[in-house]
Structures are given as C-alpha cells and as structure tokens.
C-alpha cells in the first residue's frame, strides 16, 4: 500500500482562494457586498436606506427568497419546477374563489388551497419519477395547465380576472394574519415616537410611524432560509437530497429512497409558491390571473447564481437567499436611483450568464476534471 502514501507528495496544498471558490455561497457573498457598496455610494440620499426604503427592498427580497428556497432544494435534488409562477397565480386565485366567490371562512380557503397546490407539486414529482421524463417538460405542461385554469375559473365564475375584497374577508380570521399581519408594531410605534424613524405628519395616519411593523412575508422568508439550510446541511435527509441530485442510480444502490426525496422536494417547492401567493393576496387584498408570471425563472436564476449546479447535486440555500437579497436591492435600487426599471431584466440576464460560466469552472475544480 506504499503507492498511496507516495501519492501524498502529489497532493498540493490547496490555496485559500481555491478553497473559498469551491464554497457555493461565495458568489452570493461577494455580490451582496458589491451591491450594497454600490448603492450606498451612489444612492445613499435617494431614500433607499431610510426605514421606508429598507422595508421596501426587504419585502421584494423576501418574495424572491421564498420561491428561491424551494427551487434551490429541488434543483440540488436534480429537478426543476417551471410551474412555480403559475402556481403563485393559481394559489392566489383559489383563495379568492374559495374565500370570496364561495364565501368560505378565510382559514378554510387557505388550508384547502395549500392542500390543492401541494397535491399538484406531488403530481409533478410523481409523473417525473415514474416516467423518467425531464422535469423541464413535465412542469412546462403544468405551467400552462395551471395558468389556463387561473384565467378560466374566475372568468367563468365572476366574469373578471381580478377578484378583490380579500383583506376585508380576512378581517378577524385566525389563520390569515400568519401570512398578512405585521409583527413588532408596538416597537415600531415606539421608534416613531422616539424620532428614530419618521412619522406621518398629517392625514388620518398622523402620528403613526412610516414603517409600522415587519410583514410576516419577511418572517416566512427568513424562517424558510433557516429551515432549508439546516435541512440541507445538517440532516440525513439533506444528504439524500444531495445524493438524489448527484447521481440518482448510485444513490439508489446505496439505499437512498430517491423517488421519495424528489417528490417531497416538488411538494416543498409548491408549498413555497403557495406561501408567496397567500402573503401576496393578503397584502394586495386581491387575486389576479396574471400574478407570478416569470417568477419561476427568477427563482431558478437566483438559485443558479447562488452557486447551485443546473445538473443537481451541488448548491447552497444561503447562496440562493443572498442572491434573492441582491435581486431585491437592485430592483428597488434602480427605482430609487431613477433608472428605467426594465433594466433590471438586463441585469438579471447578464449576471446569470457570468454566474453560469463561473459555475462550470468551479465544478471542474471540485471534481478535479480537466
């Protein structure tokens, strides 16, 4: 066995840079620092960093985060879900149909919507693992099916594609505040009274702070990041997620229940999309047939830039969450800096391309391919 010991001299000490480069979160961390530096330097006076501004981009970032976490775990497990955007529109519309058109209590509408959407996620997963078809195609079908229903159902029942009145219907409900309420309102009132943050000076909100609490949307986003990160890196199931995406057949031979892992990840993605939808309808007070369009791609872009490999088996929830934060800051930052907001899409496209090229290089470094 002296051969192996002789090999030792051929293992070069890894430089600190290379060691850092193969951490999937690196891109997200560097990007976060860069984006904040940029906007602090160039848009500090624009109101982006006062209480209202921070809340503004935090909410947008939290939205990106919620769907990115689902997409991230699913991509690491080796699959895609293109139906996330349609699922958001569909879930919102289901709540409106159950809660407004059918007049169910809001808590029942929310629970039934969760059940239906997670069942669609399970169906996606089941079809993918049973047929062996690429999840790209299967969920592309779901994308169209769900979007079609999201337009058809309200058209048929209400003769319109936007259903409002949800906030009023959710008044006094016990479950709705978990998605639509704000927390620490007393603390923010106190901050306003102390003059730390601004207060409204006239109108019927006079004396109230401009930021009156942390929306539950942000709490959900942070909660899901912590849950996703711990699940992936610190549990046995997390190891199965990596294994299922790394090489499904090898994982099966080692006794990993690959099909179950994949289906559960499809269900988790659907769960995240539904959380997004419920928070959104509670905030807007209405559901629209066009909600969530292109969200699936934004989620996938965040995950890929966050260091995950499109082919599965490698990635990081923290990386995806940091990129979601960057997206929120940049999208709202462009608005504050009075830059045409459509440029946000140009920004997405450009950094996506860079990130994918960088990822290919990093993959070679991890696996030692040449």
């Amino acid at each position, binding site marked *: 066995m002296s*051969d192996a010991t002789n090999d030792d001299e051929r293992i070069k000490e890894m430089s600190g840079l290379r060691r850092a480069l193969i951490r999937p979160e690196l891109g997200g961390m560097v990007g976060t620092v860069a984006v904040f530096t940029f906007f602090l330097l160039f848009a500090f006076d624009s109101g982006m960093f006062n209480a209202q501004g921070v809340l503004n981009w935090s909410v947008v970032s939290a939205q990106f985060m919620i769907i990115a976490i689902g997409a991230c775990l699913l991509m690491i497990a080796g699959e895609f879900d293109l139906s996330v955007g349609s699922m958001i529109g569909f879930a919102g519309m289901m709540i409106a149909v159950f809660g407004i058109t059918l007049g169910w209590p809001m808590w029942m509408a929310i629970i039934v919507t969760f059940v239906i959407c997670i069942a669609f996620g399970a169906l996606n997963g089941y079809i993918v693992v049973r047929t062996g078809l690429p999840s790209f195609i299967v969920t592309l079908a779901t994308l169209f099916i769900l979007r079609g229903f999201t337009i058809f159902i309200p058209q048929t029942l209400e003769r319109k594609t936007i259903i409002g009145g949800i906030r009023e219907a959710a008044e006094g409900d016990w479950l709705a505040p978990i998605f639509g309420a704000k927390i620490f309102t007393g603390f923010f009132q106190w901050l306003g009274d102390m003059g730390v943050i601004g207060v409204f000076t006239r109108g019927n909100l006079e004396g109230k702070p401009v930021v009156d609490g942390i929306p539950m949307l942000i709490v959900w986003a942070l909660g899901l990041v912590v849950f996703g990160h711990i699940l992936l890196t610190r549990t046995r199931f997390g190891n199965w997620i990596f294994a299922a995406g790394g*090489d499904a057949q090898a*994982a099966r031979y080692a006794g990993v229940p690959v099909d179950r892992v994949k289906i559960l990840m499809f269900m988790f993605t659907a769960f995240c999309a539904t959380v997004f939808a419920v928070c959104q309808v509670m905030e807007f007070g209405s559901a629209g047939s066009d909600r969530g369009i292109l969200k699936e791609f934004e989620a996938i872009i965040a995950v890929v830039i966050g260091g995950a490999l499109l082919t599965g088996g490698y990635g990081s929830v923290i990386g995806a969450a940091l990129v979601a934060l960057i997206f929120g800051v940049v999208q709202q930052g462009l608005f504050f800096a009075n830059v045409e907001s459509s440029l946000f899409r140009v920004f997405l496209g450009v950094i996506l391309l860079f990130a994918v090229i960088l990822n290919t290089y990093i993959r070679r470094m991890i696996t030692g391919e040449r």
Partner: protein
Amino acid sequence: MTDPIIRMTDIEKHFGSVIALNGVTVEFYPGECHCLLGDNGAGKSTFIKTMSGVHKPTKGKIEFEGKEMNFADPRDAIAAGIATVYQDLAMIPLMSVSRNFFMGNEPVKKVAGMSFFDHEHANDVTMSEMKKMGINLRGPDQAVGTLSGGERQTVAIARAVHFGAKVLILDEPTSALGVRQTANVLATVDKVRKQGIAVVFITHNVRHAMAVGDRFTVLNRGKTFGTASRGEITPEQLQDMMAGGEELATLEGSLGGTV
C-alpha cells in the same frame, strides 16, 4: 472446509424469450476471493444482479448462510449482508468522501428532540477507515471527484465492509483502471478477504483474476464450466474457456499469445 455462505443452485433467468442464465450452480465461501469470469454477454452481470436482489431468478435456489432467500429488492440483500460495488456507480463525485461514505446510513444525533446528521462522527470514521485502506485524504470534506478511479473503488469497498457486508460483490472493479490503480484495488480485495468476507470478483481479465482469486468460475453463454480452485487451472485454460475454446486459440497464435 467451512460451509459456503451463499449457494446458488441451478439458477435460470429468462428475459422474455432470451435465456440469460441456463442453470448456473456456484458456491461462495467466506474469506475467499471467488472470481467470476466470462466474456461480454456471458451472463456475469445477470448472475450477480440475481445475487444482489436486482433480478429474481426464473428458476433455482439461493441459499444464504444455509437458509433459502428470496430477495424482493436490493435493500433486502444489503440488509442481509450482500453488498455490491458497481464499476461506475459506486460514488457521487460532487459529494464529499464523508457524505458518500455514509450515504444511506447517515449517523444521527439528537439535539432538542430532532435528529441531525452527526458530521463529526462521520468525519472521524471516514478518516480512520480511509487510513486503514491506505488512502490519504486532504480532509473528510474532499469531494470524491478528486479521487482516482481506483481510490473511488476502494472507498466504496471500505464503505461496504464498514457497514457489515458478509459478501462483497465487485462488478469489474479493475476494468477501467490503470496498472497502479488496479494493484491498489487488488490489494484492497486481499485485505477484505483476510477479514473473513466472501469476495465475488467479476472480471474478464484473467491476469487480474489470477492475482487474487482462490476459486474461478467461468461463465459462457449462460452456463458454467464448473469451478476450479487455485493451482488446478492455468491462465491459458481460463482464457480458452471464456472464449468458448476455438476462435481465440487461432487469434492468439497470430497475436503471439498476448491477449
């Protein structure tokens, strides 16, 4: 002579109208390396897949430690102590050695009533097991992709042994390897055999077989030519049996006996 750990009697396996195995009888003994030789299509893969629970035999009997077994799927066979290391599918390159080592058997520790992957324990065990097998890792978090093909086979073998395999089936472990890596894997096989594990070594390379084998069984067109012990048979005879006798003898003449 001890009793065989596995006895496969009159195994037949038909795929539709194709007869892949036509009555194969082999016995495997603990602490021995049993080489299963045969050309492509001879039925080697079908035979080991029957043994490891992937296929159910159409006819025949599998006895494991004297009891008749009916494996429903590979997990049953693994639970009984029959581990298989497949050539390309042994490891997941993007995952760390330690995560690979414990894949499917993750150690858990309880924190506040919830189960978490015990990385510390996994890393310690991985490092010490790798040292035993003569592989020096940079760290337990090193990706398997950075290991050579021979090292990957060795990690897979170490994993099977660590988790209590009594029978270790190696599916062509050396066929894609260079000379030195092959030597490493063969040395690993030797270590495993000395621990009293029955090794089933599938190959079509007679020299690799002769290097470690205690017994040799040649499969040809779904049938066995019987089993020979070490010293009872020459490499040339094995080679001839694998090829079915005739054609290779003439080929060998023209190639100067190097095949």
